[in-house]
């Protein structure tokens, strides 16, 4: 049953991804001009003259004068058959190479953030709901709203400032100066660990606050349900009852939002990354868009879209696995 469901959902992905890729390519083509115009004006600003023939040579090389669908077809063909996302004009290197250098750290930070968010938000949310209107609940409601209201980059700046003025240590970047640009080594890894918590905490604050609210609200709703009373009337102990029945249902929104969490792994938290000077993909995406680095931007958007689609699929599969009503397509009276 579950396998059939997964297979069906996988088949649905094919037309969806096709449409998504056309849209992505259309969007990156939208701004007037292209990378060459930006490139030429940059050079001219710097006082370097560029000959017409050189420009035409560049245009021919990247196929920029060809019609939209021809360009699209060759782009998609290369991705499907060669795994080639094209070349980044700006970095003068294949897109896949440019991205892969940063994607590991981005994913590390993002997954740690996700774990941090869940590990902090779930227990607090559950406790807030079970002890609704207690002092604990009020304190965390207050902290939660503050966390939601303050932009992440501001929190980052405040922490950076506080740590620097008290200890003199600058927490920006993920590595000490001596390791930047060095190949990976155990020493580099150890160097990174004490600096990792800041982006994780900063990026995680808002989502933690939001998740506390969601968990609390969902659980409060579930705690009123008749099936909880039924279980209590059976003689189930309060603790077992809480985790077996209402919590299992209350974490559903958490699972259904995995689909939106995955793309932020690549693209999200650009401002925080810039403020903290993190070698993640966010700032790179921003620059690619600024300079109309078409294939790099396109590669990013495509990866983000694919991750969204896959994330949604994972969410759906997990939900189906957790909730039999979805698995069997049952109807709720």
């Amino acid at each position, binding site marked *: 049953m579950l396998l059939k469901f997964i297979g069906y959902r996988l088949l649905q992905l094919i037309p969806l991804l096709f449409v998504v890729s056309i849209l992505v390519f259309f969007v990156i083509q939208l701004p007037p001009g292209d990378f060459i115009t930006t490139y030429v004006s940059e050079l001219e600003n710097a006082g370097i003259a560029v000959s017409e023939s050189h420009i035409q040579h560049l245009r021919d090389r990247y196929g920029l004068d060809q019609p939209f669908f021809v360009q699209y077809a060759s782009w998609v063909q290369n991705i499907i058959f060669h795994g080639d996302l094209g070349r980044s004009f700006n970095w003068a290197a294949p897109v896949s190479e440019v991205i892969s250098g940063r994607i590991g750290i981005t994913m590390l930070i993002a997954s740690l953030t996700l774990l941090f968010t869940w590990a902090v938000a779930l227990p607090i949310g559950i406790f807030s709901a079970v002890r609704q209107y207690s002092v604990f609940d009020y304190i965390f409601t207050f902290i939660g709203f503050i966390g939601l209201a303050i932009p992440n980059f501001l929190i980052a700046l405040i922490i950076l400032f506080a740590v620097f003025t008290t200890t003199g240590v600058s927490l920006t970047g993920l590595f000490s100066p001596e390791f930047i640009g060095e190949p990976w080594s155990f020493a580099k890894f150890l160097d990174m660990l004490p600096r990792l918590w800041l982006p994780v905490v900063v990026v995680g604050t808002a989502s933690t606050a939001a998740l506390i609210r969601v968990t609390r609200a969902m659980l409060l709703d579930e705690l009123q*349900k*008749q*099936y909880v*009373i*039924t*279980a*209590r*009337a*059976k*003689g*189930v*102990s*309060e603790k077992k009852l809480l985790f*077996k*029945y209402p919590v*299992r*249902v209350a974490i559903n929104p958490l699972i259904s939002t995995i689909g939106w969490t995955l793309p932020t792994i690549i693209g999200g938290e650009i401002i925080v990354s810039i403020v903290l000077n993190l070698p993640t993909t966010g700032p790179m995406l921003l620059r690619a868009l600024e300079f109309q680095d078409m294939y790099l931007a396109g590669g990013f958007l495509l990866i983000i879209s694919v991750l969204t689609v896959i994330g949604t699929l994972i969410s759906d599969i997990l939900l189906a696995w*957790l*909730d*039999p*009503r979805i698995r*069997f397509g*049952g*109807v*709720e*009276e």
Partner: protein
Amino acid sequence: MNIDVTTTNNQLTSDIVLQVKDLKTHFDLEEGLLKAVEGVSFSLRQGKTLGIVGESGSGKSLSAQTIMRIVPPHAKLGGEVLLKRRRKGKDDKIVNVIGLPLNSPEMRDIRGGEIAMIFQEPMKAFSPIYTIGNQVSEAILLHSNVNKEEAKKIAIESLRKVGMSNPEQRFDEYPHQLSGGMRQRAMIAMALSCKPSILIADEPTTALDVTVQAQVLQLINELKDSLNTSVIFITHDLGVIAEIADEVAVMYLGEVVEYTDVDTLFHNPLHPYTKALLKSIPSTANRHEKLESIKGTVPTPINLPEGCRFYTRCKYAVDGVCNDNDIQLTSVNEKHDVRCVRWDEIEEEG
């Protein structure tokens, strides 16, 4: 939780399994003290069915939930619920359920083990994410000394007993795969799987079709007889009471207003509220008469004035007589109590 335990000699007459004395369930709200259950007393005899009847808001369900101690934790409870423990190894020990610490092992042992409960809405009473079998066996595992395999056997046997076809298959099905009637049967199977000495049925047939209602009532009656279980049956439906109850307590606004056996209730009701209730049932005998209804609705039991709680809706109410002091439940005879100061005058008026 404010537990007011009055000391008694803790004795119950031999055939009484549960005695409720002066039960109170109050909620301290901003608007005032809500006396949802106010001094309810009744006793349940071995193998008999006590019907509790009343409108919505009369406190009938809450009385049952108070007996089970599954009311919200901020409720203030008072009075006594004396329970004769009858399961293995308990030797007819008598405990006051209201005096037990909430969620203590003994309280949990009583819930589901000694007193089982079935609820109004079978659609919502099962958790949607576990199989019927999981939820029925859970009760068995909690209250009997068996392993999972044995619990499964008992559960399937239970499902069979309540008339479910193909119980082995039902065991692995989810609640949403069953119809309402089947779910209520599963609910009854779950409640009776631990062989409780008391079954509290809180409007178990209200959400069901009439034909299914009759089957469920018959099932409860059969099981009651074969297992010698005592039943508290809560309903607003006097027709159901006539079919299932041996004794009846009529509740209004948190109080028992009339308490008698089922025959007397239907043939010689004394309280104006009971009379009005009976007149509001459609009958084929006097089909040309207009159906009577009780004017008004049940008020909220916050800051009620002194006197009879039915005063505002009673057509026999007399100013200065009925609204002076709180009315006590008085015995008309050995088997008939009524909470009305004018019951004998009303009898003469006809």
